[in-house]
């Protein structure tokens, strides 16, 4: 009876929320009030795939949903922002019959790193994908090892772990379950034999803290490593990017399947690989997976083309409080090679909370922008002066930098100054403050 009531109310609120154009965690929250352990009594479909990690959760889940639908599966998945327990309850209960059976073939569940253990107290995912553990929102997350400790108790023994073998910290999770499937990338031409970032989180073995040795780095602490003491090392991979050609935006998986990239970033490569692994494990034909990815354009707005006065620009949505995301955007700009100006905006540090925490600026390798192709840099937003101090500790020439805290004033200035190309780097939290002052352009 409680099941009936909780599901009914959840579905009703979900329906009303839909009419109001609001997806949210509220229906789940109410259902959990009526029946706190309802999720333990739901009849789940054969495949329940959880995806967690610092970066790439949303993109991986959205892409996998697209492919699974193309393969004829009925899929439900949650959106970014509803990845805590109430969000998971909303998603699952809204798709339930009144007797508590989920009407779909696959549940794809993006889970917040810190809340996974509260969700998987009630049911076990059949597959548990962990993408990476990087310095992300340290304000609330502490540090990657702290996040590791939060995720660890959420892993049920009987789940199939799907782990990024290239991340030494993520690889430690393998001890938690009986079965692990590995994905990773072989050595590529763009790899480095040294860590090129500001900090090196792969320097010491996450298990025993002896020094680790890398054969190569893809980026940050992601690469091929082995511990000099305890033997912890990159595992042999089941799903492998055997070749990645970022210049021609093309990768090959397991030596056979070629995939075109809509956005040639390493992030995207890992998202595609994780997604490929999920689909293959659920039984989708690998050729179909590849053709679906090829037709899938990243719709999440992380790349937007705009016009600002006399200039054409590309908006690269990055994440504040996430140095790897910034590094990746800055490297993308420099790798394009053409002459350009770069706008960096840090106004609201977080979308979720008020904070003046800016230590993460010191983890970002802004020195990348000392490249000759970068002709000018505009620093804007409430933290423009903090950015300016940060740049004063890089090799970037001060003549290249203009500081204009007011975003409108900065945009007006840039609009009048011709550049061959513009790039804007900022977070979701500050995206519209800039884009609303420009005109959107189609690809």
């Amino acid at each position: 009876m409680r099941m009936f009531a909780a599901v009914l109310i959840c579905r009703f609120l979900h329906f009303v929320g839909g009419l109001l154009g609001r997806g949210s965690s509220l229906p789940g929250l109410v259902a959990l009030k009526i029946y706190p352990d309802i999720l333990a009594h739901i009849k789940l479909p054969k495949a329940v795939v959880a995806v967690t990690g610092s970066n790439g959760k949303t993109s991986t889940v959205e892409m996998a949903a697209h492919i699974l639908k193309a393969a004829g599966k009925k899929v439900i998945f949650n959106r970014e922002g509803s990845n805590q327990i109430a969000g998971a309850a909303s998603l699952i209960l809204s798709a339930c019959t009144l007797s508590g059976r989920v009407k779909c073939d696959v549940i794809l569940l993006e889970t917040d790193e810190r809340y996974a253990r509260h969700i998987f107290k009630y049911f076990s995912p059949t597959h548990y994908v962990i993408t990476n553990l990087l310095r992300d929102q340290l304000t609330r997350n502490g540090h990657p090892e702290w996040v590791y400790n939060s995720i660890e108790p959420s892993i049920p023994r009987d789940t199939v772990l799907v782990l990024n073998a290239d991340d030494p910290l993520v690889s430690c999770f393998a001890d938690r379950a009986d079965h692990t499937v590995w994905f990773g990338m072989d050595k590529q031409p763009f790899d480095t034999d040294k860590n090129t970032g500001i900090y090196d989180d792969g320097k010491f073995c996450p298990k025993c803290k002896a020094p680790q040795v890398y054969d190569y780095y893809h980026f940050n602490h992601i690469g091929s490593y082995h511990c000099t003491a305890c033997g912890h090392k990159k595992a042999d991979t089941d799903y492998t990017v055997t070749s990645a050609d970022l210049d021609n935006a093309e990768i090959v998986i397991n030596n056979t399947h070629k995939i075109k990239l809509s956005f040639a970033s390493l992030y995207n490569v890992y998202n595609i690989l994780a997604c490929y692994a999920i689909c293959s494990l659920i039984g989708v034909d690998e050729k179909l997976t590849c053709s679906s990815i090829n037709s899938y354009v990243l719709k999440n707005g992380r790349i937007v083309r705009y016009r600002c006065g006399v200039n054409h620009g590309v908006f690269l949505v990055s994440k504040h409080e996430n140095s790897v995301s910034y590094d990746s955007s800055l490297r993308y700009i420099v790798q394009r090679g053409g002459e350009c100006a770069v706008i960096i905006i840090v106004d609201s540090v977080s979308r979720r909370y008020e904070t003046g925490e800016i230590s993460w600026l010191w983890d970002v390798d802004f020195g990348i922008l000392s490249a000759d192709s970068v002709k000018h840099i505009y620093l804007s937003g409430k933290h423009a002066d903090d950015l300016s101090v940060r740049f004063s500790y890089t090799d970037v020439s001060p003549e290249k930098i203009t500081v204009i805290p007011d975003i409108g004033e900065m945009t007006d200035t840039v609009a009048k100054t011709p550049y061959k190309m513009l790039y804007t780097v900022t977070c979701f939290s500050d995206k519209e403050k800039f884009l609303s002052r420009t005109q959107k352009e189609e690809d």
Partner: protein
Amino acid sequence: MKLLHMLYDLCSLYGDYANVLALKRALEQSGEQVEIDRLSAADIPRDIDFSSYDFLYIGPATEKNQAVAAKLLAPFRDGIKAALDGGTIMLAVGTYEIFGKSITDSKGAVTEGLDLFPYHSVQSEQRTVSDEQAEFGGIPVIGFINRCSEIYDIDEPFFTVKQGVGNSAADNTHEGVISGNFYGTHIIGPLLIRNPDMAGYFAKLLLERQEIKGGNYADNRS
């Protein structure tokens, strides 16, 4: 002037390496020549002479790395103490906990500290996270706190808290520790970057110390 960035690769979080750069810049602006040595946790020379440095710095670490740092530095306890007694200034951010008596982790396991000072810390599974406004000797300071420990039995605190959190839930008015030439805090940001007056304070201490050293040198010669 010689600065040592201790265990720069093991105790490295929240961009706090920049504290050393801020101090270097402040000293250079006073006309000093500054040399920074970086001590790796993977390779600590047995005969390292901490007293040969004017300034020692150690940054924040994960709880696991902090415990490793305590073990790695234990054999050098007396050398660090001799340096501090001899006038070397030290700033420890976060990891100042290891220079106290002990650190008890959230499961009750105890890591021995270097026992240079009488405080001890107790970790929990909750993090204390807060924007911070504080004051030290008339210098206003802003920053951020992100720790999972409470620190007890501090004789002389570093900062008076104006807004934010202190050394423990029981004491939200005092943050960090001072003992002689040793300064410890959990304020990140980085502290000396966001608060140039604090960088100036340490620069001034070092310059005064050098004058005294110079004076002694002259005395010895006469």
